[in-house]
């Protein structure tokens, strides 16, 4: 750990305790002050990302069926062309340790775009399966709770 000058984005007019801004000075993270024993330090700057990706087209997919070396899925657009569609996708396009997730009902994200690297631009296609369940409308209703109940005065 090395000492760093602390940067308080909030300035002197706020305690900063409730700020959920990322506290980034223009993309670089300045960490909170941390007490480690007798030392008061700012954590080291996180190494800046050198690679940035931009999606040209991104879908949330839902597996319909698996057959041999392909699976069929519905695709709901997140970025790009707004058309809902079905696709047949090669299993080998999925990273090996995620292929066990391929079963009817499984949710995945498929992003096609560019990865900007120091060495140049690379076209990428990434399929990534959702690993944990999400709250659905039915689950929220079943719990007998509505979002506004949580937050209203």
């Amino acid at each position, binding site marked *: *750990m090395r000492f760093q000058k602390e940067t308080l984005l909030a300035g002197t007019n706020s305690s900063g*305790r*409730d*700020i*959920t*801004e*990322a506290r*980034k*000075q*223009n*993309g*670089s*993270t300045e*960490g*909170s002050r*941390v*007490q*480690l024993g007798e030392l008061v330090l700012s*954590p*080291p700057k*996180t*190494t800046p*990302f050198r*690679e*940035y*990706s*931009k*999606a040209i087209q*991104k879908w*949330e997919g839902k597996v319909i069926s698996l057959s041999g070396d392909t699976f069929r899925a519905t695709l709901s657009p*997140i*970025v790009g062309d707004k058309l809902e569609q079905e696709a047949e996708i090669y299993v080998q396009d999925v*990273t090996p*340790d*995620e292929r066990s997730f391929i079963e009817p009902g499984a949710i995945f*994200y498929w*992003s096609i*775009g560019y*990865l900007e690297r120091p060495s140049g631009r690379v076209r*990428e296609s*990434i399929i*990534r399966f*959702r*690993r*944990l369940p*999400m*709250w*659905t*409308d039915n689950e*929220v209703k079943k719990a007998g*709770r509505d*979002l*506004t109940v*949580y*937050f*209203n*005065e």
Partner: protein
Amino acid sequence: MPQIKIQGANIVLIGNFNPAIFHPSWFAAHNLLRAEEADAATINIVHPDVASFKTEWLAVDIVKERFQLGTVQESFYETLRDIVVGILGLLSHTPIKFMGINREFHFDLVSEDSWSGLGHRLVPKEDWNPLLKSPGMRNLVVEGLRPDDLKGYLRVMVQPSTQIKYGVYIEVNDHYVLKEDEKDVGGADRARVVLSEKWNESMKRSSEIAQAIAKLGEKT
């Protein structure tokens, strides 16, 4: 037309956390990250007071009162959300008071005219010229009420970009209040519901706000 050159998303939680547990191996053990990703992580520190590490696409920075996960790879925005939803499910008793769903953008405004025009549009210089020599906007923060029935606010920060010549950095902080007094429990569950239900809307809104601001320089 302003072009997005760099963009990112991050989720910030304000509450009470135990940074020591947030080791990459914990993420892998709970199926939040692939084992290979966890093994390849660059760890700055994992300590009872602070946890900080990066994977190929994910940045994790956690202290006792503040939890922040983020990425600058658009391909992984939804995976980022899923990881935080997963953590909130695993740590459902964690007291959480506030949550921010945040977007950041570096726009290339291409020309000095558009770049200085945007600064002048947001912070007109007429009143500043008598006070300062060559005043220029360095940091602008504007906050507005939430457009929905939830408690919190929207806060937008605009700065000249340090990454792009004639660029502008815009951050949109979509802030939710999850609990208001210490006796109130359930912040983690509420955060999980908000993330699940409001993510798409938040992402879209923040992008529209940032795009609209970046275009202001073209209208001067």
